[in-house]
């Protein structure tokens, strides 16, 4: 601990640490001592309650006041000393507060929502663990630890998606989620390593503060220069790409967004907390942390991808029938907004949208959870074989679930971004700045804000569709299965309290006293030296046009789904199919990427078996073959020579034997013949 810190700050730091560690303590207690006990839910809830109170205290003490950075030696590797520490600045305390405050209602809600589940205790272990990781992620002061908790939140998300691990789809989904997140992790890790190589430190404060290492490094002549380290500039791009991959995976940006809709296999409360409000926002948070790293071109790329993601997800959400899937795609769409906002330089507004989105999306999910829960009750009471999440089965629920209806309405309006909601403030802020940015950049860039606006109208349409289909009209189940009993309601206080709390948070007063102008939000002033492009014409035009058209679109949706007077394009059109099949991206991944990787792995295994092992076996065979040759040589050449000489001798003997016929005269004849031959030769030579 840094001794120079005043007592007040030490206390603040202790509070922050306590806020982070309390959920972990809850996790440990649940894991070790409260095997199957129902107490575990309350342990976790109390922990997160205390944690959120402490977070709020820390928030008030740090916000716009000071930056606190404490660190402690972790380990030494080579010449590098690694510290573990926490960095409390506006961004981190905002996230700290946000996460714990949102986690609290979700915990309360969960105690009711999960009460009949066999894995109740396990659920709270995971949830507490997630809270710990997420809280730690936002306060960590160095990239390695950031990465560590970055992955741990992915891990806890993995656990929670696969919470019902006996469901095949759930475990498929969590595997997919983790692996896609891993792709992002690899990117992030690579980026961290590149930064470490470049700046020899992992310390976020040193790297990214004003006038820090990043700011003082330059790019010159294709080299990335900082201090004495020179690296080809391409590695700066790769670092940015790596970080983008991390962001894309965690925040479900194109092309790594496909895990998020599948992740809805987890309990709805988990979807609300992790896959809507907090973890998926971690990508945007990371962008905020490393914002100085990006240069102009990279930011533009970021904006394009964010915008495209937003648009694509919105089009997909138009046609989905699964309640949670619609919300998931809307989450992707909103995250696309945030990333785009980062890309166009609207740093503060992006984070502002992150905060507002967290509340209203959490609200929407919790409401959806209640709806699904009740439909499930109907299903179980009547032994029906239906999908409780299919909005085609619902309808007319506003009378049965009034509070839920109101909450959904508030959340939905905030999502559309109609005035008086928090969503209006942040979303209009992004759109306005997008137009201003495009005006500065040139006309071709105008496509971006226009697309974003279109997305906004699409959002209005699908939200309207969702609400109308679920809460208006008549219960479709009743028409399909007449005579079923329906005993449903909003549920107890543990359901109601979170909804009320979050609904309040979705309204404008929390963020800005002026319900119509985003520029006056206290949040924006805290996050950057935000000046805004003052007195721009867009400040007035954009909100008006967007909102008016949104209302038109909603009315259109009302006509389609309630009046049913206009029958929209047939449900087999090309656009419909693209949208319904989620742009075929998942199918593409399955058919191309996964198959390719599996084929590659089969190929390497084949290579291993056939080529390498084949080579080894070949060597063995060659060895045996050589041994065979040697033995053959031994038998036929070495022995052969022996046998041959023996055979020659025998042949000669046999030949000579023929002379030994026992005939005396024959011997004599031979002898004389020899003599005469000698004589003749002698004469011939003599002459």
């Amino acid at each position, binding site marked *: 601990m840094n001794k120079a810190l005043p007592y007040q700050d030490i206390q603040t730091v202790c509070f922050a640490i306590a806020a982070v560690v309390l959920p972990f303590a809850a996790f440990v207690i649940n894991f070790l001592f409260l095997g199957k006990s129902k107490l575990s839910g309350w342990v976790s809830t109390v922990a997160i309650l205390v944690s959120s109170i402490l977070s709020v205290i820390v928030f008030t003490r740090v916000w716009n006041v000071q930056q606190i950075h404490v660190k402690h030696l972790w380990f030494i590797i080579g010449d590098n000393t690694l510290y573990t520490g926490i960095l409390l600045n506006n961004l981190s305390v905002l996230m700290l507060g946000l996460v714990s405050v949102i986690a609290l209602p979700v915990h309360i809600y969960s105690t009711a929502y999960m009460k009949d589940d066999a894995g109740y205790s396990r659920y709270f272990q995971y949830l507490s663990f997630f809270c710990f990781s997420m809280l730690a992620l936002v306060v960590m002061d160095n990239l390695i630890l950031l990465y560590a908790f970055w992955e741990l939140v992915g891990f806890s998300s993995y656990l929670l998606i696969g919470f019902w691990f006996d469901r095949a789809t759930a475990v498929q989904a969590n595997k997919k989620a983790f692996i896609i997140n891993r792709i992002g992790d690899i990117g992030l890790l690579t980026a961290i390593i590149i930064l470490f190589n470049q700046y020899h430190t992992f310390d976020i404060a040193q790297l990214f503060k004003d006038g820090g290492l990043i700011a003082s490094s330059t790019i010159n002549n294709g080299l990335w220069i900082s201090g004495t380290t020179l690296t080809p500039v391409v590695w700066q791009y790769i670092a940015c790409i790596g970080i983008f991959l991390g962001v894309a995976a965690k925040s479900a940006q194109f092309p790594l967004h496909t895990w998020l809709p599948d992740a809805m296999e987890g309990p709805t409360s988990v979807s609300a907390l992790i896959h809507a409000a907090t973890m998926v926002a971690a990508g945007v948070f990371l962008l905020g942390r490393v914002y100085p790293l990006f240069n102009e071109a990279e930011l533009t790329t970021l904006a394009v991808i964010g915008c495209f993601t937003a648009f694509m997800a919105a089009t997909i959400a138009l046609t989905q029938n699964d309640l949670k899937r619609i919300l998931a795609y809307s989450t992707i769409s909103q995250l696309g907004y945030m990333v785009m906002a980062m890309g166009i330089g609207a740093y503060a507004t992006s984070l502002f949208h992150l905060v507002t989105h967290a509340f209203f999306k959490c609200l929407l999910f919790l409401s959806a959870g209640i709806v699904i829960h009740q439909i499930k009750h109907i299903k179980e009471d009547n032994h029906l074989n239906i999908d409780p999440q299919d909005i085609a089965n619902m309808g007319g629920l506003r009378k049965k679930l009034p509070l839920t209806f109101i909450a959904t309405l508030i959340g939905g309006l905030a999502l559309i971004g109609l005035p008086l909601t928090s969503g209006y403030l942040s979303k209009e802020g992004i759109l306005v700045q997008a137009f201003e940015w495009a005006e500065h950049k040139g006309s071709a860039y105008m496509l971006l804000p226009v697309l974003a606006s279109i997305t906004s109208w699409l959002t209005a349409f699908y939200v309207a569709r969702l609400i109308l289909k679920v809460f208006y009209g008549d219960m479709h189940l009743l028409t399909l299965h007449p005579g079923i009993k329906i005993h449903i309601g909003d549920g107890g206080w543990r359901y109601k309290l979170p909804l009320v709390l979050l609904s309040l948070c979705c309204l404008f007063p929390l963020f800005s006293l002026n319900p119509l102008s985003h520029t006056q939000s206290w949040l924006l002033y805290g996050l950057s030296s935000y000046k805004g492009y003052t007195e721009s014409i867009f400040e007035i035009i954009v909100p008006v046009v967007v909102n008016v058209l949104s209302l038109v679109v909603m009315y259109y949706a009302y006509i389609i789904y309630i009046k049913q007077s206009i029958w929209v394009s047939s449900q087999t059109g090309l656009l419909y199919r693209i949208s319904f099949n989620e742009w075929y991206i998942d199918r593409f991944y399955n058919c191309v990427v996964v198959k390719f990787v599996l084929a590659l792995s089969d190929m390497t295994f084949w290579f291993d078996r056939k080529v390498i092992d084949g080579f080894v076996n070949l060597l063995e065979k060659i060895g045996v073959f050589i041994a065979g040759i040697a033995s053959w040589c031994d038998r036929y050449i070495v022995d052969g020579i022996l046998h041959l000489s023996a055979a020659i001798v025998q042949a000669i003997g046999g030949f000579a034997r023929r002379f030994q016929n026992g005939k005396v005269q024959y011997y004599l004849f031979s002898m*004389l013949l020899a003599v005469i031959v000698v004589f003749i030769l002698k004469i011939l030579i003599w002459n």
Partner: protein
Amino acid sequence: MITLTDFMIVSAVLFCTGMFVIISKKNSIQILIGIELMLNAAILNLVAFGKYDRINNSGQMFALFAIVLAAATTAVALAIILNVYKQYKTIDPDKIKQLKD
């Protein structure tokens, strides 16, 4: 004048005749005769050259010895032939091939 060469030619012819008899005849007694012919060819030479040793008479002396030895060998040979005949009932040397391996 009878030259030495004349004697030697006679002796050579005689020798070859004896040799032919030895090789070709299938009768042990005839072979024995062939041997005697060859011996006589040799003796003829001894005698012919013996003319030039008047003091020691070596040629004639050895001719005498040879004659005597021939007689002895003939006696033994005949005895053997008789025995062989008793054993094998033949005097054809080709048919007596116990030595053959």
